[in-house]
């Protein structure tokens, strides 16, 4: 019973956060100065009636709260609404595009995490490695993600390695400090004095102590990976959600933007909830 209550509370908190996030995005997008500008209104081929229709369409989205309430009502019925710019159901757009993004994000996340974790471990275990990996990470951290993307494109590397390279230095920095602190704890010394195998010390004594931070980092890194996916998909012309978000932003497509924001917020929040949950258990 207690368990059920906790699940309910977590779910409520999640829903509230996503709703607030969506509302904030709506307000932000709606009130930004460029929202009313529609490139189609400058199109000379359209006659006045078409322009009036476009105007009316904007007016419909004029009141933030009314738009949001309508959007949410649709969401409750499983209807994600229509994209204003592409004139297609958003659900269909997401369904046809999520796989591309999920694939490069998953590959990028996996590669970034493995690279960061292995190097962080090497840095903590071995003083000589610490210096080399430190230089490597500072170099990667000093380059803007766009520059990393350019580098990979010039070298014809796989697309997901851009995401991995963007994530790596941030993960590495955090993981190295985390592992350093974890290894400095007195109970690790006890484990060493028992003569345990280093791998066992890592798996049984070090990692369980930082499960919470690791999960939180996983959530943050997923969010970062999506941030990196936008320029990557835009540059690489990949039909994924990042490119969709980019197109939606350029076309000032409010329903699509709000839906995408809520989707990403929800994913991040789920990661956070899971890590919260883990800690309480």
């Amino acid at each position, binding site marked *: 019973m207690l368990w059920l209550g906790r699940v309910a509370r977590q779910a409520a908190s999640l829903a509230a956060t996503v709703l607030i996030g969506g509302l904030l995005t709506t307000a932000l997008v709606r009130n930004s100065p460029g929202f009313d500008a529609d490139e189609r209104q400058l199109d000379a081929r359209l006659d006045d009636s078409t322009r009036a229709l476009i105007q009316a369409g904007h007016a419909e989205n004029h009141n933030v709260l009314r738009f949001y309430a309508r959007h949410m009502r649709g969401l409750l019925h499983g209807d994600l609404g229509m994209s204003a710019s592409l004139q297609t159901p958003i659900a269909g757009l997401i369904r046809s595009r999520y796989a591309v993004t999920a694939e490069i994000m998953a590959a990028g996340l996996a590669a970034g995490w493995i690279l960061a974790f292995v190097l962080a471990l090497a840095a903590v275990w071995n*003083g000589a490695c610490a210096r080399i990996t430190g230089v490597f990470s500072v170099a990667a951290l000093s380059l803007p993600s766009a520059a990393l993307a350019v580098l990979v494109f010039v070298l014809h590397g796989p697309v997901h390695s851009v995401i991995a390279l963007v994530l790596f230095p941030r993960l590495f920095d955090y993981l190295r400090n985390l592992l350093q602190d974890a290894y400095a704890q*007195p*109970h690790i010394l*006890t484990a*060493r004095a028992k003569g345990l*195998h280093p791998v066992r010390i890592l798996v049984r*004594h070090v990692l*369980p102590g930082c499960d919470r931070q690791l999960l939180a980092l996983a959530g943050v890194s997923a969010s970062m990976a999506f941030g990196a996916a936008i320029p990557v998909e835009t540059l690489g012309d990949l039909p994924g959600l990042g490119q969709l978000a980019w197109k939606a932003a350029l076309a000032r497509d409010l329903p699509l933007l709000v839906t995408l924001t809520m989707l990403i917020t929800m994913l991040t929040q789920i990661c956070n909830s899971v890590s919260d949950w883990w800690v309480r258990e």
Partner: protein
Amino acid sequence: MNPVLYARISADYPNRPGVLEDVEFAIGRGEILGLVGESGSGKSTIAMTLLRLIESKGGKARGELLFQDRNLLALPGRKMRRVRGREIGLVLQSPLSALNPSLRIGAQILEAWRAHRQGSPDLLQLLEMVNLPPEPGFLNRYPRQLSVGQAQRVLIAMAVIHRPALLIADEPTSALDVVTQAEILRLFSSLNRQMGTSILYISHDLLSVASFCHRIAILQQGRIVEANTTAEIFRNPQHPYTQALLAAIPKPPNCLETTTDCPSLAWSETINQAVDDGQYRAKDSLVCASRS
């Protein structure tokens, strides 16, 4: 007779070179050696160096470390690991943080066993040996459900599970209250008698060391300045630092000079025990030493 351990070691940390400089001492079989020094004198570094755990902290040890006819400093990492816990046990200070907070006591003790041997030991008997309640329920507890004294006993149980030839205790009683401290000291003493384990007992408290150590070495700024039998250290301290240590022992109130059976004071217990063990002829020597 060959000593269990002979050490002539120096140790450096990257940011603190010369933590230990040519520290030389030996521990005989079944002997309890007390190592006394102020904080920062390198006491804990000695414990870390003997188990070569100093390397995991970025430090480096040089010199000679003969244990059971092997030079531990020359052993490959893999073989060194077989020594830790199996042939040399370690008990740390601040017992509650030295236990993994997320694992049950039973699992941690069992892990100490499995690190070197197959099967499962008689855990209840082990608990009884260190004066812990020999109940399965106790093994299911987490460290936070223990008192500090109980946690220290658990650590000792893990350290002696393989009946090591040498037990290193690094200020094991500094986090304990006086009564528990006395109990733990008695436990070390009895383990030493029952199993014949040699003990290197590191402390800053000369009195508690004197109560049960056969010999005492005084460490100051990374060097051993004096080493002798307990009685000789108290009777005839050579080095000025040893003399200062002895002079710093609190002077007992007048009433206690005639009645020495006050159990609540650590020093009086020390005298009693020392007298029992026949190490001193009379309590006067201690009192005189503290006055000089």
